[in-house]
C-alpha cells in the first residue's frame, strides 16, 4: 500500500497538455482513495464538452503515473461529468489506446497532438524566461548569443530546461539559449520577431489556463480565484 501524498506527487507530474500545468494545480483531481493493492483517482474537467482527445491523454497519463508509485498497485482513473467519460474510462482501463477507444474516429495515437502542444509550451516558456532576463537588463542581441552555461538560475530557467529536455533538444552548456521547437538556433536578426510571436503563444496559453480555472470554479462552486487577472 502507498500513501495519498505519494499518489498526489505522482499526479503532480501529469500536466494538462494544452495548458502546460499540473492537473493537481488546476484542480482536476477531485479525490484520491488508496486501497490495498489499488488506487482510485477521480478527475473532473472545466466543462462537459472538453475535447475528448486531451481528456483521454490526462486519464491515460494519470494511470501510468500512479502505477509507477511503489506499492500503488493497479490504478483506476475515473473521469466524471464528461460527455465521453464512460468510453474514455473503459478505454484507458483496458489499455486500448486512443485508436482502440475510438475505432473509426481516430487514425493515430495522440503522440502527434502531444508534440504540437509540447512545442507550443516550449515556445511560451522560452518567451517567459527571456522576458524575465530582459527585465533584468539583458538585450535581445545578448540573449541571441547566450549559451545555456551562462543562463542564471531561476524558477523560469529550471522549468524551461525541463521542457526543453522533454522535447529531446540539446540542454548542454554550449547549446544556444534561443532555439526554435526543432532545436534550430534563432539568429540575432530574427530574435525580436520570433520572441514577439512567442509572446502571443504565451498570452494564449496563460489565458486559457486562467479561463479553465474560472470555469471549473463555476461548475463545482469552488472558492473563486481573485478577480482581476
Amino acid at each position, binding site marked *: 500500500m502507498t500513501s495519498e501524498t505519494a499518489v498526489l506527487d505522482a499526479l503532480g507530474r501529469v500536466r494538462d497538455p494544452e495548458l502546460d500545468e499540473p492537473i493537481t494545480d488546476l484542480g482536476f483531481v477531485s479525490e484520491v482513495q488508496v486501497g490495498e493493492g489499488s488506487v482510485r483517482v477521480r478527475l473532473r474537467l472545466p466543462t462537459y464538452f*472538453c475535447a*475528448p482527445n486531451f481528456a483521454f491523454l490526462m486519464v491515460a497519463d494519470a494511470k501510468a503515473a500512479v502505477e509507477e508509485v511503489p506499492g500503488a498497485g493497479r490504478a483506476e482513473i475515473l473521469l466524471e461529468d464528461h460527455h465521453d467519460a464512460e468510453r474514455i474510462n473503459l478505454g484507458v482501463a483496458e489499455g486500448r489506446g*486512443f485508436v482502440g477507444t475510438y475505432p473509426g474516429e481516430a487514425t493515430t495515437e495522440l503522440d502527434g497532438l502531444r508534440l504540437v502542444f509540447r512545442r507550443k509550451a516550449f515556445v511560451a516558456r522560452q518567451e517567459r524566461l527571456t522576458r524575465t532576463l530582459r527585465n533584468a537588463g539583458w538585450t535581445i542581441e545578448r540573449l541571441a548569443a547566450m549559451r545555456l552555461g551562462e543562463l542564471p538560475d531561476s524558477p523560469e530557467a529550471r522549468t524551461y530546461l525541463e521542457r526543453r529536455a522533454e522535447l529531446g533538444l540539446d540542454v548542454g552548456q554550449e547549446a544556444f539559449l534561443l532555439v526554435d521547437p526543432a532545436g534550430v538556433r534563432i539568429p540575432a536578426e530574427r530574435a525580436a520577431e520570433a520572441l514577439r510571436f512567442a*509572446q502571443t503563444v504565451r498570452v494564449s496559453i496563460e489565458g486559457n489556463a*486562467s479561463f479553465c480555472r474560472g470555469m471549473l470554479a*463555476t461548475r463545482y462552486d469552488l472558492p473563486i480565484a481573485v478577480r482581476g487577472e
Partner: protein
Amino acid sequence: MYEKDGEKYFVVDGHMHFWDASPANQKNANGAGFISCFYDYHANLSPPEYVWPKEKYEKYTEQDLMHDLFEIGYVDVGIFQPTYLTDFYVNGFNTTEQDAVLKEKYPDKFVLNGSWDPRDEQKGLDAFEALVERYKLPGVKLYTAEWKGDSRGWKLTDPWAERYLAKCEELGVKNIHVHKGPTIWPLDRDAFDLADIDPAASNFPNLNFIVEHVGLPRLEDMCWIGTQEPNVLGGLAVAMPFIYSRPKYFAKIVGELLYWLGEDRLLFASDYALWQPKWLVEMFVDFQIIGDDASELPQLTPDNKRKILGLNAARLYNLEVPAEVPQPVSA
C-alpha cells in the same frame, strides 16, 4: 447607438442568438450538457446583476431579446448566427427559420445569416441554395465541431466544404463565420486548430472569413493566419466578457489582435444570450489597454473602438451608418 463623452458609436452585435434549449426541446443528455456548459460560461463571466436564472437562460422570449439588445443594449443591428445542433435538440438549437421570424418582423434590426454542413452533400447544397433564395442571406455561420450521427466534425478543406464555399461565392454569400469546437474528424487532431482556414481563405479571396471567438482557445493561430490572409477577420464573441472578469487578460487579447490583425478586422459581438450587450458596450467604450505588456501594445481610441463596435461589420454587410457617426479613414 451609444454615446459617451461626446463620442457616438454605431453598434452592430456581430453574433447573437434566439435559442430554445428548454428541457422540452432537449433530445438527449448532450442537449442538457450543452446548455449547462453555456450557462457556466454565462455565470462565470457576467457581472452578478446580469446573471439569469437557468430556466430563463434555457428559453427566453422575443420581448427579452428586443429589450436587452435594442431598448437598453445600444445595439443598432444584430446579426443572427444560427447554430443547428439537431443531434442535441428536437427542433434545433437556433435555426435560420427560427431567426427569420424576427427578421421578418423587424427587418431593419437584424441581419439574417444561414448555415450549411458539408456532410449533407448534394441534398444540403440544394437546400442551402433554396435558403439563400428565400431569405437573401448575406452570410453563413459554420460550426465545424457539430456532431452528426457518427461524425464529430469536419474541416473547411473537405471536398464537399469546398463545393459549398464555391456556391457561397457564386450566390454572393460573402461572409463566412467559422466557429471551431472541441471535436473534429479525425479525433486525434487538435479540434480547435485553425489550419484549415488558411487554405480556404487563400482559395476564396472574394469571401470574408470571420473567425468566431477570435479563434480562442487558439489565439496564436488566429494572429498568425491573420498576418497571412487579408480576408480573415476576428469576431470578438466570447472574448468580450473577459473585459469584466479578467480585464488584464482582455487587454492582452485585444492588444495582440490589434498588433497582428489591426483595427479594421475585428468585430464586436455579445453572443447574446450568453452575455448582454449593454454592459459589454459600456465597459468597452471606457476600456484602456492596461497591465504588464501595455506599453508594447497598440492602444484603444474612440476611432478604433468605433470601427470594432460597428463600422467594420457595417462595411462587410453594407449597413447604412447614420451621418452623425464619424467614419475615420481605414488604417
